[in-house]
């Protein structure tokens, strides 16, 4: 062991020379790597807002997995398609229906007619025709396509039978009478068909282009034909996209930006916030712990309901204790959503849920919940215990077996699950067993009925109360607790087909009552999002229904 100083000094000098050499090599290596990276990755280094180029930069939470509109099911793809495609009807920034590709339309009790505007063009300059819709809809319902959202077209005549493979595609009740007239027959009266027609799955697809892609439709930027305000100019998978203004788009009132660059794909909220702070992206969501810092920075924080409702869904299958009404009543009475949201979850943008129908659902004139106030709920432990005793007697039980509470594996679901476990132990002396599972396994257990209570959620597909209202019809496959009631079924039938708006809305009111009286579910919370937008961007919209973020009406303003 030689620690003699002169040796160390000598060697250290040598080491320094070695280090300098290494550094030089390192720089070379880095440049070489950067050269290769340049061809593999993106070189977009955007600024949140570029005034000269009239462009903005945003982040996506996930690479859009499916841009074939007939098959896409996820939020990320919906966002991209909402900017690059347009359906017959679309929404303005106040969530009102406005004409899209269809200049006007008529909805009758046995069908509908859409008159397609001649100025609507595809991104190659060809006109959008009624045939493109007929082709797209037949493709959605073709059993071979296996589209998960096929059910949303079921109001069309024979749609379900075609989708099940019982009838040929040609029997579907949709016909292009000419290039500009699209005729639809209904299976049953469907007064809300205009709202459905705005949905992603109803977007057009042009047959000759589709065939030319050889099964790769939607796989790359050049494997898609666009008819919306923007087109995909560039798509580097997993890394970035450039949406540029579609020169053939007909509407001057939409698509004010020349370019929207999605330069980042990450769902890490902190990374998004850092990108926003650094001026790289125009808006970002804020999680609860970020709010104090955001307020210190004097940002303009906005909040909106993302549309989803979360609830405890009971297993109504025979043989389960949760099949017993008194048991469910006891659980309903012994909890309080306010406590859950304000004291346990502490998410500032969430709302305690009071009904199957979220606050933003529209009624006849204004908000549905104003016109049909949900039944009052008061926590009442004494009454809850009475119901529990009744249930015990009815079921002939000495004591209740442990109740299986199925839930997701996110920290928020676990927090809520532990709250219920504690709450029902304390108030009712019930043992809850928490069964936390990954998404796909939770779905598998929900489908097979392997639970007593599941913490479930539902997000809307279209801007009508029915998107929640039909959830507990006996034939609805998403009714995973298998709730079955003739009253419910007949109410849903009215809600589906009644042409008189007043009677139709009354049925939703009755569904709301029934859900509470029969304790089909126990509402937990409505999810909200806090977010912050660059103050120079105007007209940006977050939606409860449809794409979560919408830049179709966004523009840059320095004021």
């Amino acid at each position, binding site marked *: 062991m030689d620690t003699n100083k002169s040796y160390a000094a000598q060697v250290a000098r040598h080491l320094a020379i070695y280090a300098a050499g290494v550094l030089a090599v390192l720089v070379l290596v*880095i440049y070489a790597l950067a050269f290769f990276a340049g061809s593999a990755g993106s070189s977009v280094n955007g600024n949140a807002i570029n005034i000269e180029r009239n462009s903005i930069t945003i982040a996506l939470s996930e690479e859009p997995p499916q841009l074939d509109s007939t098959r896409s099911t996820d939020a990320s793809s919906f966002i991209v398609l909402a900017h690059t495609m347009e359906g017959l009807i679309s929404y303005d920034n106040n969530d009102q229906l406005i004409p899209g590709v269809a200049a006007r339309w008529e909805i009758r009790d046995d069908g509908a007619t859409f008159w397609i505007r001649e100025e609507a063009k595809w991104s190659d300059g060809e006109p959008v025709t009624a045939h493109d819709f007929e082709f797209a809809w037949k493709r959605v319902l073709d*059993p071979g396509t296996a589209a998960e959202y096929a059910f949303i077209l079921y109001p069309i005549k024979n749609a379900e039978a075609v989708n099940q493979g019982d009838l040929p595609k040609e029997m579907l009740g949709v016909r292009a009478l000419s290039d500009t007239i699209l005729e639809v027959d209904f299976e049953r009266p469907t007064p809300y068909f205009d709202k459905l027609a705005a949905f992603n799955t109803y977007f057009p697809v042009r047959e000759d282009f589709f065939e030319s892609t050889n099964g790769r439709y939607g796989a790359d930027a050049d494997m898609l034909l666009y008819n919306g305000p923007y087109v995909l100019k560039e798509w580097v998978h997993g890394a970035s996209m450039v949406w540029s203004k579609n020169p053939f788009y007909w509407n001057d009132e939409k698509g004010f930006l020349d370019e929207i660059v999605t330069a980042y794909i990450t769902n890490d909220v902190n990374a998004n916030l850092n990108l926003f*702070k650094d001026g790289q992206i125009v808006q970002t969501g804020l999680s609860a712990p970020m709010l104090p810092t955001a307020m210190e920075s004097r940002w303009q924080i906005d909040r909106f309901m993302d549309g989803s409702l979360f609830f405890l869904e009971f297993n109504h299958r025979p043989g389960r204790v949760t099949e017993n009404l008194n048991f469910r009543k006891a659980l309903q009475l012994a909890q309080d959503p306010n406590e859950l949201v304000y004291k346990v979850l502490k998410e500032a943008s969430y709302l305690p849920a009071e009904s199957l129908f979220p606050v933003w659902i529209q009624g006849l004139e204004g908000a549905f919940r104003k016109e049909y106030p949900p039944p009052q709920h008061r926590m009442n432990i004494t009454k809850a215990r009475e119901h529990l005793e009744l249930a015990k007697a009815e079921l002939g039980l000495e004591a209740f077996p442990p109740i299986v509470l199925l839930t997701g594996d996110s920290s928020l679901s676990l927090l809520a699950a532990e709250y219920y476990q504690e709450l029902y132990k304390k108030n009712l002396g019930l043992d809850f067993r928490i069964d936390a599972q990954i998404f796909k396994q939770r779905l598998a257990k929900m489908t097979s009925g392997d639970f007593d209570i599941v913490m479930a959620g539902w997000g809307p597909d279209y801007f009508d109360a029915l998107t929640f209202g039909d959830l507990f019809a006996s034939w609805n496959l998403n009714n*995973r607790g298998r709730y079955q009631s003739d009253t419910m079924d007949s109410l849903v039938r009215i809600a589906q087909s009644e042409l008189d708006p007043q009677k139709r809305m009354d049925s939703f009111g009755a569904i709301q009552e029934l859900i509470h009286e029969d304790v089909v579910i126990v509402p937990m919370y409505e999810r909200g999002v806090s977010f912050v937008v660059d103050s120079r961007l105007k007209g940006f919209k977050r939606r409860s229904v449809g794409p979560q973020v919408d830049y179709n009406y966004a523009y840059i303003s320095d004021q």
Partner: protein
Amino acid sequence: MISYIVKRLFQGILTVWFIATATFFAMHNVPGDPLLNDRAVSDAIRANLESKYGLDQPLGTQYLIYLKNLSQGDFGISFTQENRQVNDIIREHFPISAILGILAVVFAATGGILFGALTAIYRNRLPDFIIMILVILGISVPSFVIAAMSQLALVSFNNLFGVTVIPVAGWGTISHMLTPALVLGLGTMAYLTRLMRSSMLEVVGSDYIRTAKSKGIPATRIFTRHQIRNAILPVVTVLGPSIASITTGGFVVELVFAIPGLGRYFVQAVQQLDYTVIMGTTVFYGAFLVFMVILVDILYGLIDPRVRLEK
């Protein structure tokens, strides 16, 4: 030498086959159903989806089909990104992970050898203490913490100048790559520093160094020709597997810095039970690791003649 390489390659292929088989059966036994989604589908559609992915076949048949495709290098179509071949996903995203990983390993190796040598020379003196404290931090603090903190530091740094000097996330240019690569390589760098230090100290006390000294060879020559060359051997040994683990283990760093690497697909595939992507990435990563180990064994022989096996 050649027969040795051939033998190792054959063992490697056997290992990969074993990995593929084990993953295949483990994956099919993981609870959960890959075809289930938010919106329930009818039985008819379900049947069509099953036949599309061949899930309607018995497991044995699925395995055989899978092996046949694997031997042709075809991993199939992703369950979640239905328009993309798993081969394309690997081809497009692995180079990015690899570039990031190579840079991280370069950082780790140069830093580790340098600092390791330094601490050995200045043993029990101030530079040694400072570096060893940093090493302990580097080993014990998880990479997601370091990633998040360094990103925060970048934001403050940029705000100081009023312009973006170093981008906080993204991919494409050199400035995008430096921070994530450093963060990714930090743990390995710390590990290598310790390894280098101890092996340097071991070599210093050995007979041949004493002999060299007694022959009057200059200190620097002893250092470069004898000490470093001997001390570096264990470092090279762990370098191979760490290249593989760094290139494949960058998931967190890739997520925080929004880098389109393969690590993200690998982890997401497991969460979403995307069978084909799980299989594709696991077999690919497994083969990569096996290959790196073989490569290191061969390199080892080049550095140290004693290891050159005559068999």
